[in-house]
């Protein structure tokens, strides 16, 4: 049951739910959380691929450590996601200060 396919499918479902949140919700914080969900789905897929597949470097005998590049990718994605969330929340404060709302669709400076 715990296999490459099931992990990928769970990751795909979580990715799609994050997409749903970004597309349908207008609240900024929910959009950030949905974005974070999509990042986490990518991390899950990378870790599943690392666990269940063998990279070609192992076959060539060039090095065993390349087997864990997915973990490096996960660390990068988690770091960038956290950094981006911090920056995004600063933007939420600036946004709220300017528009006095946290709803994305009310942030329009154009008339008409």
């Amino acid at each position: 049951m715990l296999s490459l396919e099931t992990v990928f499918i769970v990751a795909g479902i979580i990715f799609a739910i994050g997409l749903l949140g970004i597309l349908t919700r207008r609240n900024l914080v929910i959009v950030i959380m949905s974005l974070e969900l999509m990042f986490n789905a990518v991390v899950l897929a990378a870790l599943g691929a690392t666990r269940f597949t063998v990279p070609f470097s192992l076959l060539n005998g060039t090095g065993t450590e390349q087997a864990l590049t997915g973990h490096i990718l996960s660390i990068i994605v988690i770091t960038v996601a956290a950094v981006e969330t911090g920056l995004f929340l600063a933007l939420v404060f600036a946004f709220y200060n300017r528009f006095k709302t946290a709803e994305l669709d009310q942030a329009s400076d154009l008339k008409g």
Partner: protein
Amino acid sequence: MSFTFVDFIFIILSVLAVASALLLVVVKDLFRAAIAFVITLLSLAGIFILLNAEFIGAIQILVNVGAVAILLVVTIMLIRDLSRGSRPTQLVLVALGFGVAVLTATIIALGVVDTEWVALLVDNPGFESAILGSADAEGVLDDAVGVTGRLLLREFVLVFEILGVIIAAAIVGAIAVLHGVNSDDDLQEREERA
């Protein structure tokens, strides 16, 4: 296909992750959304640990559950409009977004099911014997933390450095964005409006 205890845990964690992710997207109250977010992240950390990535699971709990979720909750509490909940979106747009999301999930699932993964899998007998000639993939996974650390500071040291620069740039950027926000003029203006 045998059904083991690990599979049982995996199913429970997956269902929990997907259900709380759906709750996060659907629920109106932002505090409940944040709680659902934390539950999703924790279940995903559990799945990471099941995938022999204990270190990533620990990072997930430390960084995402410990820092990011708390940051989100603080933001929700600081901004008055946020804790009041959000307005519902138009039904047409919700249906459209739902359609796109279902389409994405279907395409991913079909692609995963249709692909011949077996040539790449660890469990493939022919492949396994080929690996045993050079190295043992399971052994690498057993020492995941050490291997990841060496990998990060040798082959991927440039990535490591760039991550540091990105973090510094983001901190400077956040300070620059917030510079002048919530100054006295704005507070007076807000009080006048209220």
